[in-house]
């Protein structure tokens, strides 16, 4: 059974990110140890056979995982007809996810130059 109590997941002092911001985040992530979120993280690690080489990395990924739980809940609210939740990418930041798993460059106008191969397709009959 999961513990559904609301827990504080934000910084106590609203510290801004400074040169030592990384340390703040790291310390903050320690707060997740022993919580239901860590329990879910352990299940995630088992399910997707994840391996983290150091304790620091484990704690960092735990913090990312918690943020992604919040993101999944936001996506669920914004996209109610789909099911959103924990996936194999739940330990990746948005930047890491984009860098590692996407890779289409630029979404602007891709229409070809006049006379080159790859012209625009003529419209087809689509009535009925």
């Amino acid at each position, binding site marked *: 059974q999961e513990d559904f109590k609301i827990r504080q997941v934000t910084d106590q002092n609203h510290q801004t990110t400074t040169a030592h911001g990384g340390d703040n985040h790291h310390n903050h992530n320690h707060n997740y140890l022993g919580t239901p979120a860590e329990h879910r993280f352990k299940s995630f690690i088992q399910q997707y056979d994840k391996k983290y080489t150091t304790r620091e990395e484990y704690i960092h990924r735990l913090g990312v995982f918690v943020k992604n739980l919040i993101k999944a809940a936001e996506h669920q609210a914004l996209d109610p007809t789909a099911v959103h939740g924990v996936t194999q990418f739940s330990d990746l930041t948005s930047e890491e996810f984009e860098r590692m798993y996407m890779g289409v460059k630029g979404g*602007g106008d891709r229409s070809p130059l006049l006379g080159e191969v790859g012209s625009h397709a003529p419209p087809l009959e689509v009535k009925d």
Partner: protein
Amino acid sequence: LPESFDWRDKGAVTEVKMQGTCGACWAFSTTGSIEGANFIATGKLLNLSEQQLVDCDHTCDKKDKESCNSGCKGGLMTNAYNYLIEAGGIEDEDSYPYTGKRGECKFQPDKVAVKVSNFTNIPVDEQQIAAYLVNHGPLAVGLNAVFMQTYIGGVSCPLICGKRWVNHGVLLVGYGSKGFSILRLSNQPYWIIKNSWGKRWGEHGYYKLCRGHGMCGMNTMVSAVMTQTS
């Protein structure tokens, strides 16, 4: 147009692939469209090489010279078609297997499995996209993948999804007319999209995206390819 359509039922789609931690979705989208076009032309489903594109294709977009194909760092499907027309074709997966890392180009022209003769950009109208899908086979598509990080299943129809930030290459393989939504208590039409993140992601590797709203920019970068048969 049929009410629903799926190229998987007709044998035009290979198994879901896994790009690994390499931003080569553009290569998987490209091979998927060529695999489908070749199936329609020859009746044979071949599993084609993404690694050839990752290693050998450095083609740049003719309008935007900074959009160049660059292995795991990204690329464009239309650049890849231009490369394959120039190179003389694409090898199959067995002769040039995927490693998930960019390496030295080992393309062997005598091992070409499929030749590409031309390609075309499909209009943004989703009825036109459906017509081209049915008539020409699976289509290479670019979309904004922001909701795909947490997607597990069902028909994705986000209330807000940036249409300009197209950042992921996938393959459109079909569409359905009645994707039931528990929350909305209604049926809605959807696209069936093949992804390259393995079978454990989404619905056995597939993504259902609602149809008719230009959702996540899926209608802005759609292309079909023509293969050359001897």
